[in-house]
């Protein structure tokens, strides 16, 4: 058995200043955005060694929680109250993605929650809890429509997980017109009080 040790991803750092630029102006300078993101190994780029283990981290950090509290209502087009349960489930969901995807997600969230990189790659100047509806909508639309595949992938990662956690939960079945389980299954043993 080869040595098993803990993985630690290199900290994400921004390499350029964006002061004086509007978000859109900055993001349109894709070459510059490339220079920032190319140095960030968030798509399967975390360096480490054979079959190493990452420790469990089922809780979001405060910064990560603020990020999702800000974005989930915009992604889902629902009130903050309706969106909060998704945020409550998000930490455990990310933790169970497996080490590869989890380290990617951690990288992405580190970039979006560290102020200089938040401004640089998301174009959001205020902290997430202070960002306006317009800031957040523009961020999502910019990443969705960007010509940089890396940003599209980040957009898909954020929206897919948020949307699946919302619509997959029985409390929200009515939001998709899904009537729920067929009645017939209630006769199956796994739905009885004490399975036979």
């Amino acid at each position, binding site marked *: *058995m*080869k040595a*098993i040790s803990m*993985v630690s991803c290199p900290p994400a750092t921004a390499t350029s200043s964006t002061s004086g630029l509007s978000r859109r102006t900055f993001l349109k300078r894709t070459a510059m955005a490339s220079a920032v993101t190319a140095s960030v190994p968030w*798509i*399967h780029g*975390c*360096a*480490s*060694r*054979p*079959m*190493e*283990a*990452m*420790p*469990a981290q089922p809780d979001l950090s405060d910064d990560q929680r603020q990020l999702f509290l800000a974005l989930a209502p*915009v*992604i*889902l*087009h*629902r009130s903050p109250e309706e969106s909060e349960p998704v945020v409550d489930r998000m930490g455990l*969901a990310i*933790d*169970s*993605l*497996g*080490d*590869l*995807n989890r380290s990617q997600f951690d990288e992405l969230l580190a970039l979006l929650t560290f102020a200089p990189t938040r401004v640089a790659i998301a174009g959001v100047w205020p902290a997430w809890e202070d960002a306006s509806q317009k800031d957040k*909508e523009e961020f*999502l639309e910019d990443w*969705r429509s960007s010509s940089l*595949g890396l940003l*599209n*992938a980040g*957009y*898909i*990662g954020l*929206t*897919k*997980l948020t*949307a*699946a956690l*919302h*619509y*997959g939960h*029985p409390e929200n079945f009515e*939001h*998709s*017109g*899904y009537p729920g*389980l*067929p009645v017939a*299954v209630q006769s*199956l*043993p*796994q*739905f009885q009080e004490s*399975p036979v």
Partner: protein
Amino acid sequence: MSLQDPIEKGLMSGWRIDDLTRDDAPALLEADVVIVGTGAGGGTAAEILSRAGLSVLMIEEGGLHHQKDFKLDELWAFGNLYQEANSRTTADAAISILQGKSVGGSTTINWTSSFRTPEPTLNYWKQQFGVLDIDSANMAPWFQDRENRLNIAPWAAEPNANNSVLQNGGRQLGWNIKAIPRNVKACWNLGYCGFGCPTNAKQSMLVTSIPDAMNAGGRLLTRASVSQLLIEQGQIAGLDCVALDAGNHLRPSRQCRVKGRHYILSAGAIGSPAILLRSEAPDPYGLTGKRTFLHPVVANIAEMPEKVDPFYGAPQSIYTDEFNWRDGNEGKLGFKLEVPPLHPAMAAGVLGMHGEDLRQNMERLPYINSVLALMRDGFHEESPGGEVKLKDNGRPVVDYPLNDYLWDGVREAYLQMAECQFAAGAKRVRPLHLDSGDYRSWSEAREAIRDLPLKAHRVRLFSAHVMGGCTMGENSRTSVVNSFGRHHHLNNLSVMDGSVFPTSIGANPQLSIYGLVARNASRLAAELTG
């Protein structure tokens, strides 16, 4: 009867099953044959080898989940029955990969489509890769054997409304439309095959071959991820496993060493090459992990005038090969058209939308049909497939380059699917593409699809079939294993799963794996007992 769970019965009868995350798990296990993986390949091999009187140990990375756990909960299924909680992707995240991870592997969560390997595919393997005894006449008895064992027959009931869209639209256009053969027995036609069959109607490895092997004295080690094979003098001397817990975390403090006379890799076309690469298995021509195929999938959604309820009913029952071999084996990229089920979380995840757009589309879910195209990759010099590589932390990823040959097939598929959906009466059609809008007519769709930019991350791409990476053939300069799955350089190692396919299949691959592994495992059983 279908309500009698074979796993529950087996547990009560004292099957020998160990969970490597538990305190009482063994640190050393031995068997005649050690099989890594319990999906279509591993399950079939276990059944056949144990029936021949050999002691068999199956090793599974996921947990043992069965009827008592199958409560039709989509998010539970993603977390417990799918690799990486259904978040697996290619290296650049451009293609989402659905792959199983529990006892039964992908057969526990597949949609039951069971096709024999198409004749043009078998011929191509024989001609281009020199695979022996692979023509239809040689393979027919093996497919028949597995069809009998797994109750495979074309779906005789009416297709659900979602599949009817492909049937009706295709017939309008004069396409050859057929019913999909399914591996089910007394199916309730519920629609939850992807969450673990709640009635045990699906004849997956979980309720057929694995119970056979266990009843014959087999042994099962679950939640055990194989870290490496121990190679000594051209032989496998053992292998090491590390516990992988329910939350997908490796537990390095829990390990097990396993020894056998013969070893079989059936860990799927990502897992099997990855184990060989991690073990630094002899590979003088650098072939391991190369020629990895995905059947890349693109899909359209359509809003129909009447409810489709795409979450209910047998998920896949209708297909057409109208475009699969149209341009011959080696011409333009061919594709098979089928229909996917859409449950809420899956639908929300594949749309690639947010805000009002997401909310409005999800509110219309009962009216949404989807048609998908499964691309037949690997038959053309411009379709060399991808490569399984190891990250520095030992985890495998698939690097799958996308090129114009693929994009030409994607555009053609978007067009054919849209025409079919409008022919079936769709009010609007939308390719799953980040630049697509809603198209209200076939003529509008035709013009717009011609202009859609086709590139990674704009096109929503999926794969449910990972194949290749341990190509079979007789020439060790071009293949990793021989025609019967034996490794060219390690004489007590076989590979028995979809990773031996020299190309993709051109159809959902489970029966191709069952048939080929039944043949190869029978041959191996004769050699080991002879």
